[in-house]
């Protein structure tokens, strides 16, 4: 799940930059920016951080 989070974050960045730059209109670019950042945040909060919380210290996870 952590790896999936990292991949989704990178994917979101690609949408917000490389894909957005291929769109001609400014509105289209801005829309792809917003979508890309939303995907990045989903990867960060929804996947990566959630994976860390599964083994949170108050749930009996780390520290070592």
């Amino acid at each position, binding site marked *: 799940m*952590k790896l999936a989070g*990292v991949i989704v*974050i*990178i994917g*979101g*960045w690609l949408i*917000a*930059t*490389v894909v*957005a*730059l*291929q769109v001609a209109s*400014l509105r289209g*670019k*801005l829309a792809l*920016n*917003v979508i*890309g*950042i939303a995907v*990045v*945040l989903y990867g*960060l*909060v929804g996947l*990566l*951080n959630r994976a*860390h*919380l599964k*083994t*949170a*210290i*108050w*749930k009996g*996870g*780390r*520290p*070592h």
Partner: protein
Amino acid sequence: MEEGDPSLVAFLAPAVWGQAPAPNAPSAAAPSAPAVAVPLTDQDLKKVAGPKPEELAKGDPGGTLTGTVNDVVVSDSKKGLTLSDLVNQAGQNRVAINFVWTLITGYLVMFMQAGFALVETGLCRAKNASHTMMMNFMVYGAGMLAYWVMGFALQMGGSAGVGLGGVAPLSGEFTVNVLGKPWGLFGTHGFFLTQGGSYDVGIMVLFLFQMVFMDTATTIVTGAAAERWKFAAFIVSTLFLGAITYPLYGNWAWGGGWLSQLGKNYGLGHGYCDFAGSGVVHAVGGMTALAVAMILGPRIGKYTRDGKANAIPGHDIVLVLTGCFILAFGWFGFNPGSTLAASGNGALRIGSIAVSTMLAGMTGSFAAMLYMWIRFGKPDASMSGNGLLAGLVAITAPSGFVNTVGACIIGFTAGVLVCLSVEFVEKILKVDDPVGAISVHGACGLWGVLSVGLFADGTSNYGGSWNNVDGSVTGLFYGDPGQFVAQFMGVATLVGVVFTLSYVFNTLVDVVVGQRVSARSELQGLDLPEMGALGYPEFQLVTTHPSQAAAGV
């Protein structure tokens, strides 16, 4: 410069000592014929007389005899003063002003390390005081080492166009072709400050200024990771941040890299604009802090078994607010110094930049104080301090492009944002950030980047162009939506690339070195297990706060 160069006209003539009129003084004669430009020659300069030795011997309490033609350096004493001497002296004076300005502001930024050290140590518990202080102390050396070896070259190795003067050897930028346009990725000149002709007076000034900025980013991480970070892991992580992560983003924004060229290559305003580093310094530090804090996990006792957050108060609010004042003082180096000049190319805007900086800090602290007062019934001191820093962080990117009203709005918004973000990070993300660094520097850094694209008023003029695009940086509210899109791409890159790079590397450090101290060390306090000495050896440390006592910490 040829003698008698016609470009040098008679406006220089009034510089004859003792005869210079006031700039707007009415002329005694009022000729109706247009003024004719008369070329100056070396012979004209011979007529310029300085004060006589006997006059100087009497002293100069009014300062009117010091700094005259006598002080202009001549290249050949037999020939005396020539036009070449005069023009070269003018050029050197401009560069000297810029060097001195940039160095002094750099020294102010260096002193911010003391402010960060006090803020972070004060917000941590007394049993971790020495460890927290030591991280803030050694981050300076570790970051500097990495930056000298390779960080500076990666960041600024292709940035020969900066306005400081005298940095021509920084002309190597590695680029790749993306979507038919060159994307600068990193610089290639300046390793060890000797390679590629970088043993240069201007480059040394630029290095000092950029180095203290980088160190500011690295010290942000120590706050979020405090009270549980293994010292060895901290050193390795700092070296990577100073050598790779920070310089890469710094290159993309300031070193001529791809983000800065979004305007030239894709018509998006003036490309990504970050005047003094809300993104480059603060959001890079904040994103790395988030990555490290996630990997480390929360401190023992921060959350109950059902995930409810406990407050773990710091041990000295006096240190915290003193540190905030030191930081606010240092910010007068951070933002106005980022002109890299006080003479020429619109650098006289330094006054406006300084005023915008202080106003945004003020509105930030007011907003945070009011928010906490209204929400919780008391004007919280530590959050008022964080509000000040939030306003300063947010104004850092737009400070060179906005007016004072824009600065106040940006600062006020940051003051509220930091309060909301602290709660979000603590209660929703459940990421433990003892000092609020992720919110102050990460969230408000991103807000600062976006605010350039909203509030830049189009009045700044730093030599007629910015990022190779003619005209002034102008935000959405002043008519250029393209600038806002460029700023959004910067935000996406900070969260998408900088965070990921920091996360992946620090995960590797966790596997190899181990990021977190043992539970035993953490409960004991890190001063003895990690540093070998207590921060307060004559004090008996007793937990008195109810939530900590209940949690056994």
